[in-house]
């Protein structure tokens, strides 16, 4: 008992040693940076390259990517408050030089009352001409959204009016005279689309007061503080397209430059609408879709959505038409922008490095961006990791241990001899795997040994490269240890090109390090500190799904807890490392389109990709089955907790759809990824 108390006191004594604020806290809430200056300090411009630049071009854009890939971070740049701040710094102004000018207004559809429309029926008076039932509610939601955006538009104008020679007005080329024209507010108030609601307003602040009054009325009604919607609101109900078009036209008139100055409308949290409003979420999305369908030459919509949340509702409210890809909107998939290309180009590392450097400078308060982030995490090499599993006092024992027990004793002893003294554990494990593979194929032991002695084929570059990860995993398992995870490349691979995952990992590593030193950031994080931090992050990422408010997370959590250990066991037990790609599984694309059960499975897999629990890639099968396939891996950040390889190699496990259905929906199903041979279609059950 005394020892326990002493231990507790010791732990308590260590705790307050947090000298600097962990700069990687708050990894997933970049959208909550209300302070544009702080947002810009931490924003990495490295990502605004190539395809991403389209976000700032005059066209409707849907930015796609799983949770945590930085969609909101990028889209935030459109907001007029942020652009205005950015124009105040030389470096940001330089970056913005390549971007066409625009004015961006925004609405967060989940935070404001928009998603609550549908929670209380709205009955429009018969004289208002508004359709009944759901129609009245959707019309009301449209009115709310429009006046909210109008209020933001007015804020931008008022801000420019207030700041003489302001940065934003210079960028937009709007003259003092144009903004100070006394008739400006009166002209806006007289737009026909308002049906007289703003009549009598003479200044921009007066217009804002009136807009807020309307928004407050809707809000009060939905909040049960008001019994009925006043007639004055119904008399002046606005459409969703016309006021925006008027705003776009006005902006064009105010701007004196030769180039067009369009209005951008940023819609945030579009994908949450079905979750937030079970009754009307889909209809609200259809209402928003009208903005994209409008093909307005002066107004362009920008929205972000998780990869598979976009496309489930493409109908347009009040019309039989649907949104058409490339005609009505274009998509940018952050997975392909940030992930590795076929040519092995990878944007993510430079983005992660820049983000880390900025965070350390700005959030930890070091003030300098000179920190060598790569050096801080250090280098990972397979041999150096393998060496960590050798405990000094037992050096001879583990070499034997990692050979595995399935190789006959005489072959084993000859193999030890071939390996020679001082051979590394990694070499030994790979050699044993090669020998076992050959024996399993039925080759004579003497022939195998001779071949091994002659050529040492496990040192063949490609054979070795594909198996190193699993060999290390097996070494850790055979020596009863957990795998060590450390190094800059490791952290990048674990992140799976997801900046949220990267920050999560960095945060936990920093927290572990800060328990032992006040000298933060250190020159180098110790490999044990990194291993502990990475494992913490992995565990938390796993549990996050169960405890977080993501919808569907409880099922995902259970499935991952079946899938992860199942894959681990399959890989670790395959001492011949015959199927190094079996850390993932593959299905034909059209396997998932037949019937409600398969639809359900498809939905599950898509949601797991959306929330960054699975990574998905398209791949071409080795065999000649001629159909494209999709393969899934458990997300990199979960690899440590389930003890899975970090790097993926070809060829995944070719699963039967019934098998995957069982893994997901049958809690008693055993997950094994070892039954079928490489690249061959599995035999169907008779």
């Amino acid at each position, binding site marked *: 008992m005394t020892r326990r108390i002493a231990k507790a006191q010791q732990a308590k004594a260590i*705790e*307050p040693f*947090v000298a600097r604020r*962990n700069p990687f*806290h*708050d990894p*997933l*809430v970049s959208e*909550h*940076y*209300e*302070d544009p200056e702080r947002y810009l300090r931490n924003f990495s411009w490295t990502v605004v390259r190539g395809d991403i630049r389209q976000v700032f071009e005059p066209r409707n854009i849907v930015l796609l990517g799983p949770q945590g890939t930085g969609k909101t971070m990028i889209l935030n740049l459109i907001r007029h408050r942020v652009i205005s701040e950015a124009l105040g710094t030389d470096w940001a102004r330089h970056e913005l030089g390549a971007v066409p000018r625009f004015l961006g207004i925004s609405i967060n559809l*989940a935070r404001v*009352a928009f*998603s*609550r429309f*549908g*929670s*209380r*029926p709205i009955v429009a008076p018969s004289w208002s001409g508004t359709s009944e039932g759901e129609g009245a509610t959707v019309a009301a939601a449209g009115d709310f959204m429009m006046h909210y955006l109008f209020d933001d538009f007015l804020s931008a104008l008022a801000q420019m009016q207030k700041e003489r020679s302001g940065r934003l007005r210079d960028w937009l080329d709007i003259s003092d005279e144009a903004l100070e024209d006394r008739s400006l507010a009166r002209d806006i108030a007289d737009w026909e689309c308002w049906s007289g609601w703003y009549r009598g307003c003479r200044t921009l602040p007066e217009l804002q007061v009136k807009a*807020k009054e309307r*928004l*407050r009325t809707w*809000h*009060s009604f*939905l*909040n*049960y*503080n008001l019994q009925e919607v006043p007639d004055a609101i119904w008399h002046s109900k606005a459409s969703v397209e016309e006021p925006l078009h008027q705003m776009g036209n006005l902006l064009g008139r105010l701007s004196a430059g030769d180039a067009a100055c369009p209005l951008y409308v940023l819609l945030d949290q579009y994908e*949450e609408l079905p*979750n*937030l409003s*079970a*009754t009307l979420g889909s209809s609200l999305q259809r209402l928003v879709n009208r903005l994209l369908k409008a093909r307005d030459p002066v107004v362009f919509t920008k929205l972000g959505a998780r990869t598979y949340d976009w496309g489930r509702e493409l109908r347009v409210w009040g019309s039989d038409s649907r949104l058409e890809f490339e005609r009505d909107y274009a998509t940018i998939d952050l997975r392909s922008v940030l992930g590795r290309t076929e040519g092995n180009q990878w944007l993510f590392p430079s983005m992660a490095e820049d983000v880390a450097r900025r965070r350390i400078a700005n959030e930890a308060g070091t003030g300098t961006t000179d920190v060598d982030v790569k050096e801080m995490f250090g280098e990972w090499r397979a041999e150096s990791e393998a060496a960590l599993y050798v405990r000094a006092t037992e050096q001879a024992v583990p070499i034997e241990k990692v050979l595995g027990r399935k190789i006959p004793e005489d072959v084993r002893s000859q193999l030890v001899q071939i390996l020679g003294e001082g051979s590394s554990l990694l070499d030994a494990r790979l050699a044993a795997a090669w020998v076992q593979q050959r024996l399993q194929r039925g080759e004579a032991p003497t022939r195998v040994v001779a071949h091994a002695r002659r050529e040492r084929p496990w040192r063949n570059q490609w054979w070795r490269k594909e198996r190193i990860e699993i060999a290390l995993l097996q070494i850790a398992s055979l020596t009863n240890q957990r795998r060590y995870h450390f190094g800059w490349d490791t952290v990048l691979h674990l992140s799976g090109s997801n900046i949220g995952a990267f920050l999560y990992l960095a945060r936990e590593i920093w*927290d572990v390090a800060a328990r032992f030193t006040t000298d933060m950031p250190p020159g180098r994080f110790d490999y044990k500190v990194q291993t502990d931090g990475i494992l913490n992050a992995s565990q938390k990422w796993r549990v996050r799904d*169960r*405890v*977080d*408010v*993501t*919808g*569907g*997370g*409880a*099922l995902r959590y*259970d499935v991952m807890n079946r899938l992860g250990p199942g894959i681990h066991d399959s890989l670790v037990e395959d001492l011949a490392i015959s199927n190094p790609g079996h850390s993932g599984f593959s299905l034909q694309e059209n396997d998932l389109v037949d019937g409600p059960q398969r639809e359900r499975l498809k939905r599950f897999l898509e949601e797991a990709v959306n929330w960054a629990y699975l990574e998905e890639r398209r791949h071409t099968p080795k065999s000649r089955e001629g159909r494209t396939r999709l393969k899934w891996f458990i997300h990199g950040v979960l690899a440590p907790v389930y003890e899975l390889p970090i790097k993926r190699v070809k060829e995944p496990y070719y699963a039967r759809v019934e098998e995957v259905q069982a893994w997901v929906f049958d809690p008693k199903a055993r997950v094994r990824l070892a039954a079928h041979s490489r690249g061959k279609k599995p035999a169907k059950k008779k």
Partner: protein
Amino acid sequence: MSIPWGLAQHVLRRFDPQECTLIGCVASEQRGNAAPLMIHAEGRPCEQVLVEVIDPPNAYPDYGPQTAAARLIQRRSLADAGVGYSDERFDLLSPDSNIADMLSRALGGGASRTLIIDISALPKRFFCLFVKLACVDERATNVIAIYTEAGRGGYPEGRLTDDALPFSPLPGFMGAFGEEPKMLLASVGMQAEKVEGLVDEYRNANKHIHVLLGFPSDVTMTGRAWETVRAIFRGDVSLARDAVDVVSTLDVQDVFDVIERQVVRYGRPRFAPYGPKPHTLAMCLSAMKHDAEMTYGQPRSYHPAYSTGVGPSWGYVLKWNGRPTFD
């Protein structure tokens, strides 16, 4: 005025037994029956409306059959005691208006009456709206909330709820339009870890985060709650010192006062009710007073053995002779 409270039997004796309506919940929890049985046993001519709340069909884990079986046992126990009641059946995620309409039906047309809201087994999204609307509805002259504690050691180990939806305001508690909350005020208890998801936003904006812990409390619950506090404040004890209040689990007035002190100090809060139900009730009253938001990630799946056994029932007078007691 302060909120009069005490053992439910004692509180109810203060009110005319005539013209009385009880809204409760027939659930898998035994304590949901306590108030209906007590009122029936006392021979009060009280109209009882019991709500049955059904988890959504896509909830995971799907406890539907177990919950239905447990609910049947509770119904039998009511029938055996001869308790008469009218049934109202709702989906857990029913639109706010359905919940509001039910209250209106229960209050009937015209005659003023005493409304008893048994919050013991009612989900938050139901009882908070009932309380808000009843407090402003002239048909309810008196409004009394009843809370029955679980039996001794009545909370099982493991998870009690699952499959939560994204955070959103509870019905009727969206907060004032356009007013950013100045602080996050969370109560923590069972599955308190969910609060962590809200905290980052406030920490990031350098806004105050305040936590209420109930005492006395179940040992398991206390352990979990403190774990959450550690997580919220990242183990930084100095931050937690001014930001954690250990308050009575049952004394709604006391909790209300603690909240008021924080509101005076930091400004309009955003409430995250993850603690014991009397805390939620106090937050609900304060949210009504300040037009503040109550935010919650609604779980879609409730464990059938959410609580076991029956402890004492407590009554809280929220409105007396047409006048709210908390303000």
